[in-house]
């Protein structure tokens, strides 16, 4: 009978836990809606570039940040994943960096770049006096070495494809002197200055490792800071699986107006907190100095509280594209010899009217209100929320919430309720239904899926929801193609060409029908042509026109049916100075605040208050 006893013991223990939850209900009810007394935190917004007026700060102190993921290495070349780039962006600088306001290339390790009349030969001047953190000077050799490493076929590099371009040809690099380089391009490349943002690595440290073909394993998470000379404001001081510690790089080239060497902060510390809710709790307890805030949690942050010692920065719509897309793959599974998508469904999915009807059926306002407390923006095209970007075209067709238009479109396609059961059928009597896949990790996405399901139910379309882990979903999208519809988010970029892999029909990330040999529709062929033309067009005004057409096609054809984009919000403790948030909320919102990390300092009096 022992076993029964222990089963009961666990059951009772679990029941006690639930009782605790019930007690929390009571506690919650008791304090609602009055809330605790105290102060409301301040609200901040993105500022205009002319308001960017950094003050002279003080040395010392540290900033504690959350990180959702662990670094997989500290190798800026081989890593493509955000969880690593989040860290390496503070260690390694590129020749150029992105201007936080205009998104254009601005000087970083290079001070100047200019092309010849044909746009094929570029001369790049390095910044004089830059030293690696181990004291060695930065030389043109380091740049040559970095690009050789990226082009080296033994190196796993996500940047190689975008550097090789459509012609698959290497750039030719020559060293003119220690601080001058000449790049000879196989074809004109309008995004060349932006592409110079590849992080530069030191040849004196990694030359032999690359030569031995062991670069992929170099710079692992067990590296010591001394082994990783950097040019960025911070260098690695330690990583123990739960914390990443960066210390000030004393050799960093920038100085403030008074000639003091930057950065001001002595230390950057990341706590690895893999869950957003836990990050929020740790921020509220004072363990973190900053956290990303989701719309649904906004009331929790702005209500009066005892420790209202932070500012909540609201930075406008996030850079990103959240969408529903349908599998338009006409291919046949080579193993089962059956089409990836059932032919009658494929016919709907490939019909733009069907996708427009779905867009008309989406109640984006409720998605914003019900899921994110109204702190989200309906999106209709790739850049409709980012009119501030140079290449944006906000004047695209919008298929807004209108059930009558949706019904009319479906009827035009021959999808109507033929047997009076409330469900639509097509001409052959197939019931109009499909499976919508989301990943279990994202609560917001699961809720958006539930909304879409209800919205389409009103039209008589049945949606079956299915959730899987993110990795399983990516496998399904990228290699097995056994999906019908899915909800996804991709990082948006101000430079359209960086999304070429998504928009070109042969692209691996061409979500709805990747790796096409021949574009399967006329509009996809036009997209291919636009992206080939856009990159070789050097005149910004003409480029803008070219990419305007791309956004028009995407909005018209709805291969991606855009949903809502959340407001980017970051909470940061008030004890930091020189905080000038920009609108640069990609890849992640905190970057908008920390674009000038080297100038951020701890305001007088209370440095080192943060508990560890």
């Amino acid at each position: 009978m022992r076993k029964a006893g222990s089963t009961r013991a666990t059951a009772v223990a679990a029941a006690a836990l639930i009782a605790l939850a019930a007690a929390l209900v009571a506690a919650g009810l008791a304090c609602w809606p009055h809330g605790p007394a105290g102060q409301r935190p301040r609200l901040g917004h993105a500022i205009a570039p002319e308001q960017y007026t950094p003050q002279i700060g003080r040395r010392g102190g540290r900033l504690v940040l959350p990180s959702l993921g662990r670094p997989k290495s500290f190798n800026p070349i081989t890593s493509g994943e955000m969880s690593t780039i989040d860290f390496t962006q503070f260690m390694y600088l590129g020749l150029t960096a992105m201007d936080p306001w205009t998104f254009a290339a601005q000087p970083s390790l290079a001070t100047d770049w200019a092309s010849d009349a044909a746009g094929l030969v570029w001369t790049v001047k390095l910044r004089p006096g830059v030293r690696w953190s181990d004291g060695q000077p930065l030389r043109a050799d380091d740049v040559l070495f970095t690009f050789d490493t990226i082009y080296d076929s033994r190196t796993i590099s996500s940047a190689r494809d975008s550097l090789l371009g459509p012609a698959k040809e290497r750039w030719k690099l020559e060293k003119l002197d220690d601080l001058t380089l000449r790049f000879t391009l196989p074809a004109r490349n309008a995004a060349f200055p932006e592409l110079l943002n590849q992080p530069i690595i030191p040849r004196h440290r990694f030359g032999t490792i690359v030569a031995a073909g062991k670069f992929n394993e170099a710079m692992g998470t067990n590296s010591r800071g001394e082994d990783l000379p950097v040019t960025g404001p911070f260098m690695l001081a330690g990583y123990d699986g739960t914390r990443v510690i960066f210390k000030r790089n004393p050799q960093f080239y920038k100085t403030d107006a008074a000639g003091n060497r930057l950065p001001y902060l002595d230390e950057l510390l990341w706590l690895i907190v893999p869950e957003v809710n836990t990050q929020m709790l740790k921020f509220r307890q004072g363990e973190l100095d900053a956290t990303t805030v989701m719309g649904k949690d906004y009331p929790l942050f702005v209500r009066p509280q005892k420790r209202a010692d932070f500012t909540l920065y609201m930075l406008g719509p996030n850079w990103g594209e959240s969408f529903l897309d349908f599998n338009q793959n006409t291919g046949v599974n080579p193993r089962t010899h059956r089409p990836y998508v059932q032919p009658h469904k494929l016919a709907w999915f490939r019909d733009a009217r069907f996708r427009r009807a779905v867009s008309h059926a989406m109640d984006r306002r409720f998605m914003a209100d019900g899921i994110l407390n109204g702190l989200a923006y309906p999106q209709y095209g790739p850049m409709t929320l980012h009119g501030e970007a140079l290449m944006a075209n906000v004047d695209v067709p919008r298929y807004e919430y209108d059930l009558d238009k949706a019904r009319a479109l479906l009827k035009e396609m021959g999808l109507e309720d033929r047997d009076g059961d409330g469900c639509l059928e097509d001409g052959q009597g197939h019931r109009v239904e499909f499976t919508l896949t989301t990943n279990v990790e994202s609560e917001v996405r699961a809720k958006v899926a539930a909304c879409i399901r209800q919205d389409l139910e009103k039209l008589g379309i049945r949606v079956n929801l299915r959730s899987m882990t993110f990795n399983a979903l990516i496998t399904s999208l990228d290699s097995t193609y056994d999906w019908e519809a899915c909800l996804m988010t991709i990082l948006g970029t101000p430079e359209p060409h960086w999304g070429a892999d998504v928009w070109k029909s042969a692209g691996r990330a061409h979500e709805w029908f990747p790796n096409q040999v021949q574009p399967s529709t006329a509009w996809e062929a036009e997209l291919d042509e636009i992206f080939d033309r856009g990159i070789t067009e050097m005149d910004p005004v003409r480029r803008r026109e070219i990419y305007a057409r791309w956004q028009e096609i995407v909005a018209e054809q709805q291969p991606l049916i855009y949903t809502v984009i959340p407001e980017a919000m970051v909470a940061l403790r008030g004890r930091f100075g020189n905080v000038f948030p920009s609108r640069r909320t990609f890849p992640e919102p905190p970057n908008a605040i920390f674009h000038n990390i080297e100038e951020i300092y701890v305001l007088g009096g209370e440095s080192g208050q943060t508990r560890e």
Partner: protein
Amino acid sequence: MTQIPQNVVEPPAEEPGALARGVPGRPLSPLSIAWRNLRKHRLAMVALVVLIIMYLAMLCDGFVAPYPYNAWDRQQAYHPAWNLHVVDAEGRFHLRPFVYVSHYEFDPYRNRIWREDTSRAYPLKLLVRGQTGTMLFGLLKTGVHLYGVQAPARLYLLGADWQGRDILSRIIFGGRVSLTIGIVGTAIAMIIGMIVGGISGYVGGAGDTVLQRICELIMLIPGFYTLMILYNTLPASLTSMQVYFGVVVILAFISWASLARVIRGMVLSVKSSDFVMAARAGGSSPWRVVTRHVLPSTFSYAIVAASLQIPAYILGEAGLSVIGMGVQEPAPTWGNMLQQAKSVTEMTFHPWLLWPGVAIFLTVMAFNFLGDGLRDALDPRTVGLKKE
């Protein structure tokens, strides 16, 4: 302690029917003795009544619940709990409770501020016509609800979730999964456990060794991880009903082994008793001996074990659902409803989302108390000790 009457101790425990010989009149069946003992166990009786009410509500869910489980109303997202009034806007008292139509606006801090339109009151009515729901596991349709209010007003006794669905209705419908998963699962585990345990104990030898090692292997694997792994092996195209059965079978798969071991032990002890010897001597086939003579004497344990195992299934389902596996929305289960209440924000601003936790708590407690009572009632040694 009362004195043990001589005539009660006399008969062997294997024949509980004889226990009541001292009572004048017809001898009591084992069941009625157990029932008599159980009735004296007050906590167990309360638990039984609670469970009966819950199961009745679950069977008649479409009728008892004021709304079908998926009746959403986006204008009513996160409607707070309890919108019944007895005093109207002018301060007059009404004997019949009523509700007002309400709607929300965001304040500058994005809190939902609810305003009631007091121009018209909608009284609470019994046996009202409303949206058609199903009951008896979807076998019957009903448009009549035990209580409710006339549309467009909506009754939210326990509040609404983010889609404006009534939490109370969803809890009642969620019972379809949460209240049955334990019984179905335990039944499956019981059948496997008794067969394997019975064979293992009765046959002995190499067969016993093999079966016991298999049991140990299954018990070795940490339960929750096995759950997650097995859940991932379910094909993705299943309907929520199929997922439900998948989850039940997975839960049963994890728990039959421990049952089988205990049953084996009991069979081993019963195997050498006189009545089994007699049956074997009489030429009964081993199958008959096991099913007719050996296993029945393990029933009292089996019933107790079953009532104590049911909560484990309910909690197992809730656990799976809370991490996003298990029966998917919009079909409600107490677990997937609780999943919505996971974050601090929800607990702070919409604490009524935690009500499904209370339902789980009540059910688990009730089954535990009932199991306790049953054990006392069915234990042959305690039967005689109770005062007649």
